[in-house]
């Protein structure tokens, strides 16, 4: 009990790092993903090929390898990153590949008929995108994006391997002084669970609030 109380505050503090890692990675991922998705949907042949190759390869390589390449590989070319930055780059780039698929899917989910209808009403391509495609696509992508958020949150634990002091590493430090792995790692698991579960619940409420009646889509995806 003593240990529980003394470690909970330390663990909660490092949860801050975990959340920072997650938010920074998701943000980086979203920025890159928007370009990749636009390239895949609206680009010419070459842009499509480059975007697709990027997306496929990034999705096929384990996150641990990407992280090690950035953290241990780049210094041999003279570029050195802090562990935190390397983790954000790795998680963000990998997330961008998955997010690009979410955005691509939601852009394509808007039916062709609507776009044709908007064009025939005299809207320009740009107007069609911002007034017809985008507002619907962003709603379609809320559910899968939440999923992606929880995936990244859980995978920040892998930053443990390159020495970022996030939740799991902090837990390991406590374990190495207290010899109570069962309690400490269970506490870590519980913290992760509360965040992912809470996020899912919160977003499903938000989703209902912003949904357009008759346009809900949901699917099971790997979280």
């Amino acid at each position, binding site marked *: 009990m003593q240990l529980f109380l003394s470690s909970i505050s330390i663990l909660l503090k490092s949860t801050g790092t975990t959340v920072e890692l997650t938010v920074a990675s998701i943000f980086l991922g979203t920025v890159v993903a928007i370009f990749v998705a636009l390239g895949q949907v609206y680009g010419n042949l070459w842009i499509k090929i480059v975007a697709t190759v990027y997306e496929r390869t990034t999705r*096929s*390589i*384990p996150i*641990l390898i990407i992280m090690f390449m950035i953290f241990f*590989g780049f210094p041999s070319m003279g570029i050195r990153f802090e562990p935190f930055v390397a983790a954000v780059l790795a998680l963000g780039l990998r997330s961008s590949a998955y997010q690009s698929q979410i955005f691509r899917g939601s852009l394509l989910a808007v039916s062709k008929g609507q776009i044709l209808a908007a064009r025939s009403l005299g809207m320009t391509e740009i107007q069609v995108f911002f007034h017809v495609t985008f507002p619907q696509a962003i709603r379609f992508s809320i559910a899968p994006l939440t999923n992606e958020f929880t995936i990244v949150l859980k995978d920040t*634990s892998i930053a*443990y391997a390159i020495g970022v002091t996030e939740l*799991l590493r902090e837990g390991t430090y406590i374990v190495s002084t207290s010899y109570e792995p*069962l309690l400490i790692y269970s506490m870590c*698991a519980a913290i992760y669970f509360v965040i992912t579960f809470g996020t899912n619940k919160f977003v499903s409420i938000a989703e209902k609030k912003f949904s357009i009646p008759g346009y809900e889509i949901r699917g099971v995806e790997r979280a």
Partner: protein
Amino acid sequence: MNHFIFIFIQALPFLLKGLEFTLELAFISIIVGFGIGMFTAIERVYGGKLAYGFSTAYVEIIRGTPLLVQLFIIYFSLPQIGIHFSPLVASVISFSLNSGAYQAEYIRGAMQSVEKGQMKAAISMGMTKWQAIRLVIMPQALRKVLPSWTNEFVYLVKYTSLAYLVGVPELMAQGEFVASRNFEFMDVFLGVALIYLMVILTITWAFSFVEKRIKIPGV
């Protein structure tokens, strides 16, 4: 480029030895996970209140926590209450439990997408519930689940790299071992990434072939 090829060929024997462990981990875990997933999915769809409660809790807890934490609990924490596993066994157990929860969700989704009427029709023809699940629902559900199941397999192959962190000499660990001997981190890890890429492309290709072969036209 020549440099990379030289390093890659030098590292290849080690990496292939690691690949063996990686594939072993992935194959055993996906199969055990499939068993767990099937059982859990059936419990969640057709089970009583208690079975539903337990299986839902299992799926939610596994899906809500990182795989690495699960691995650490099984490998580092269980010895505290007297249960010891070797790194390989601990990895297989945690990957199977993890994959089982995800597979359960996929299978459940597929089972529920088979129309309710078919179950009623099967029972009214005198089949037992178990027969109906086995002969009517599952043949359709398993075909529907195949694309997402392939996805899950790909995820699992990638996540086996985490076994490196508890000391299983799989592909990632071998790469790290070679790289820390010759200090060619970038080239060796690129080589490792290339092998993962090949494995995953092969799996995706093979299963899309299977998917086409077992398709029932019109369903």
